[in-house]
């Protein structure tokens, strides 16, 4: 009996951990939308009302005290930060106005620059004061890339037929590809490096690592984990459980599928262009055009839902951060300018099409040129974090509960 007790005591004794709050981290998270995080007094209402948290070591209560104590290492290695879909049930029910939903969103925003090299680009994307710089880069690059001789014509609003508009001549595709392929490939490379770092860091988490909820069907099986993760994302299965702001689920679904349709349409177009040698512009009833228009409708509808809710203040107690607005507005600008290019081209004022085309490309760069550093990267980080938590058995209980 005595031995047993001793063993018990030895195994249950927790290790003392040195804590050293990172004041700058607190300030940055507060600036990135988590300004209320210090109001938390650890009542755990948030974890109780959350529909998404696992039962064991639930979030977001523990994340709140880590944030208010500036324990950066714990937070950036915590997959739970990404299991949160910011339903804001927690923020609505928080008796102190600490808004855990906003705090976790702010931590997520903070993480892009933490993991993606070079971090100064992340800094550019984190504050509106760098906005001129963010846009100056694509403007300069694209100006260099385009056919200078055509600028007066593009600016001159000359009246042309749609078939007389040759974007290729205004901005040669090889130049365009050079700018975009270089930028996105570099960004992609940095993203992959960042994600690998992120995966490794997730593995160091003592709080939420393997074995929190052992025994799930995906634990230890990377293939099954990937399938389960993709399934969850495609169906928005977790997002759907949100109660207080379920419209966000619909809005997000529209944006995601709209974006996917546009991406697929573009891929097919490129395939037709180079593999099949099809001439531009494509007819309206071609597959890329149909997909593109459908995608445009879904994307803009989703954006309108989300933006309108945020503007009307009905986004419950949540506050929109700069990164939220950057992504939403850049997406909207890409969609609208993209559609405008087509309209203007057919409108008879096609001379203006060059200008709109230019503007559209600047926004496209703002979206995908910086993607590992802006909120755009959330899809990759969230994918990795969900995958990790499925692989380690962290969210097994959620998966089982859902099933």
């Amino acid at each position, binding site marked *: 009996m005595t031995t047993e007790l001793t063993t018990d005591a030895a195994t249950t004794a*927790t*290790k*003392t*951990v*040195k*804590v*050293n*709050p990172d*004041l700058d981290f*607190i*300030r940055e998270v*507060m600036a990135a939308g988590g300004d209320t995080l*210090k*109001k938390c*007094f*650890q009542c755990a209402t948030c974890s109780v009302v959350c529909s998404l948290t696992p039962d064991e*070591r639930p979030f977001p209560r*523990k994340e709140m*005290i*880590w944030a*208010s*104590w*500036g*324990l950066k290492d714990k937070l950036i290695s915590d997959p739970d930060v990404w299991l949160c879909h910011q339903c804001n049930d927690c923020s609505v029910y928080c008796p*102190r106005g600490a808004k855990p939903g906003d705090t976790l969103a702010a931590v997520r925003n903070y993480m892009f620059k933490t993991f993606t090299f070079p971090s100064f680009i992340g800094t550019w994307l984190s504050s509106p004061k760098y906005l001129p710089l963010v846009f100056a880069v694509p403007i300069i690059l694209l100006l260099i890339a385009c056919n200078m001789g055509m600028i007066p014509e593009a600016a001159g609003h000359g009246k042309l037929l749609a078939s007389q508009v040759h974007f290729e001549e205004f901005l040669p595709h090889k130049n365009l590809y050079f700018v975009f392929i270089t930028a996105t490939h570099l960004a992609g490379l940095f993203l992959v490096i960042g994600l690998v770092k992120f995966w490794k860091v997730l593995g160091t988490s003592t*709080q939420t690592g393997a074995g929190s909820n052992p025994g799930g069907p995906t634990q230890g099986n990377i293939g099954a984990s990937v399938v389960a993760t993709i399934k969850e994302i495609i169906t928005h299965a977790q997002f759907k459980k949100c109660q207080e702001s379920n419209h966000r689920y619909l809005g997000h679904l529209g944006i995601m599928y709209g974006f996917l349709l546009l991406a697929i349409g573009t891929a097919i177009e490129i395939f037709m262009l180079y593999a099949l040698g099809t001439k531009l512009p494509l007819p309206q009833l071609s597959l890329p055009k149909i997909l593109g228009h459908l995608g445009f409708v879904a994307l803009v509808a989703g954006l309108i839902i989300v933006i309108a809710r945020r503007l009307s203040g009905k986004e419950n107690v949540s506050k929109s951060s700069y990164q939220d607005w950057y992504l939403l507005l850049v997406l909207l600008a890409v969609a609208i300018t993209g559609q405008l290019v087509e309209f203007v081209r057919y409108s008879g004022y096609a001379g203006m099409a060059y200008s709109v085309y230019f503007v559209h490309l600047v926004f496209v760069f703002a979206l995908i040129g910086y993607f590992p550093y802006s909120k755009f990267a959330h899809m990759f980080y969230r994918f990795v974090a969900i995958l990790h938590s499925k692989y380690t058995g962290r969210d097994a209980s959620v998966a089982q509960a859902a099933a």
Partner: protein
Amino acid sequence: MASKIGVYICVGYGIGEAVNIEELSKVATSEYKVDVCKTVPSCEAEDIEFIKKDIAEQELEKVVIAGPSPRFYQPKTFPPNVIVEYVNLREQVAWCQPSHEEDTQMMANDYLRMGIVKIQKTQPLDPFPESKDINKTVLVVGGGIAGLTAALETAAAGYDSVIVEKAPQLGGWMAKLKKSIPRSAPYEALEDPGIEEKIKQVRQNPKIKVHTSTEIAKIKGAPGMFDVELKGNGAAFRVGAIVQATGWKPYQPKNLNHLGLGNLADVITGVEMEEMAKAGSIKRKSDGKEAKSVVFVQCAGSRDKNHLSYCSSICCLNSLKQAAYVREQDGDAKAYIIYENLRAPGHYEYFYKKMQQDPGVFMTKGEVTGVKQNGGSLAVDVKDTLLGEDISIEADLVVLATGMVPQSADGERIRAIIDARKFLASGEGGPQVDIMKKRIEEFGHHEGTEILNLDYRQGPDMPTLQYGYPDSHFICFPYETRRTGIYAAGAVRAPMDGLGSIEDATGAAFKAIQCLEMLSRGEAVLPRTSDLSYPEFFLQRCTQCKRCTEECPFGTLNEDEKGTPQPNPTRCRRCGICLGACPERIINFKNYSVDMIASMIKAVEVPDEFEEKPRVLILACENDAYPAFDTAGFKRLQYSPFVRIIPVRCLGSVNVIWINEALAKGFDGVMLFGCKYGDDYQCHFIKGSELMNTRGDNVREKLKQMALENERVQLFQVQITDYEKILSLVGEFMETIEQIGMNPFKGM
């Protein structure tokens, strides 16, 4: 010459239906042959007017009104020269007994008999003679924020006051603070303590006299006539009332070795932290380096049975304030607060919230298990934290938030030592010697702590409760103490902050003034407010047993060398505990006497054994138990018709002779209803019911002599809300009586 007595029987409220009024009137007219006996339809304003007119026309001196409970009437309705007695036929007969029953009628008849006998024995009241000579100056002991406020408030009400302060300057703890916690909306910003302004106002006020660097040598006399003598300057003057605002001292936690106080240079108390902050910057004591990481340990030696058992209520706020100092000094500094429960009462919650918002303030529940030197800094180990694991924090300074200890002196203990020393000096032997030696050893630390130096038989200062705070019923009677005319205010009364002390001192000053005004009219202060009666001592028959001087909860009586009590009506609260204590029955009030209650008991008609109608006497404390019986009636709850209830001033005022009389008369049992006693007593007079309980030995002795069962006399502790419990106790008691049978002394 017998006074002219009138009896008015109210027939309203269902009384007329419950009992036969004609039969009841016969008790007054035939048995007691009162001068006037009339019925009134109810006891509303017009009926009272009719009675008042009739009193004048008939030239009545004493009037019995049989109707609602005495608690129904407004005080001072009738002219002061008329003695009025109320018989409770409504709540305690008509509303709790069946109508037209013989037993109900007998009950009403008995209550009327008791009422008439009581008024026959009541004499007119005159204010005590000392009331003509009441000094109206207030002595304020202590010149901190509470004392200064008490003096200023007293002066503002137009009364003179004298401040006596031990230290060379006024201001107390407030003058030692760098900043005060927020005292006004929005309760977020630290404030200037503002004590200089108060000191200036006191110094400039012609109604306030100030003695600094002075202590009290002696206070003789009684409220309204305290003669004060000071040490040092030897000043002597007379005051009427005293506000004791002697404040607090910091608790010195011993046996908290794991927190390093005394061993590690950089472990300090909150008081030391304040001194350091006021002097300039917050530094490590060890090497003078600016402190960039400060850990506050809450409840260091508080809410711990090995140290202070209580919460001092300000330590959490003080640490929040000092955390603000740390953060103001350096924007990158960190302040940690480790608490058991962080307490920011009332509006201070806003201050807590404000501090919580500071990115450099870190709070968690937790237990500090150790503080160790770790190179130049300290390592603070904390377990059971909100972070979900045990943590270690690197700190430049550790501040222990220690609690407040009242600057009071335990008068009872000091007196015990004085008496023990006297006894040992007398050279008397016997087993007492060891007891006295033990007492000196146990209470030794109280020696030399006197503050007021009162010339009271029961000790030179106020009796204190277990935590050293002056005893007082803090909910019912704040500021009141067990010494009439002496009021405690500020941190000596209860742990509190500056704002609380200001409020407290204002209340205490008002209490002191109220006391002086009431004394000058010959009236008692709380809880028998405005009572003109006072105990009178027939000293020719005193046997110097000292029971009255020992038992008075308010230290009213001093003794001469022989041990004869020396009455002090201005110290008295009129509870009657002395009357209950006196075996010679020589202490009586004009309207409450041993003979009076005994006669009332004798006036009850006790049926003989064969009628099988037992009788149980209930002596009920008028403050709680009696109103509880009224409430039972109000709720129309029925109980035994065999009980006869007599209200008493306090259960401590019950003289054992009354119980003996009742048993001799043939009552089958006596129920004594008093208030809860012990450390968390509820007795208005501190220990009345407890004293009655100890007198139970005498009662049992008497029962043994009469060969009666112990169960026939029982004491119950109840409170005003216990009306249901009281009735079940009555029911159980009646069953007990049925089991043990009738009192064999009936009809003897």
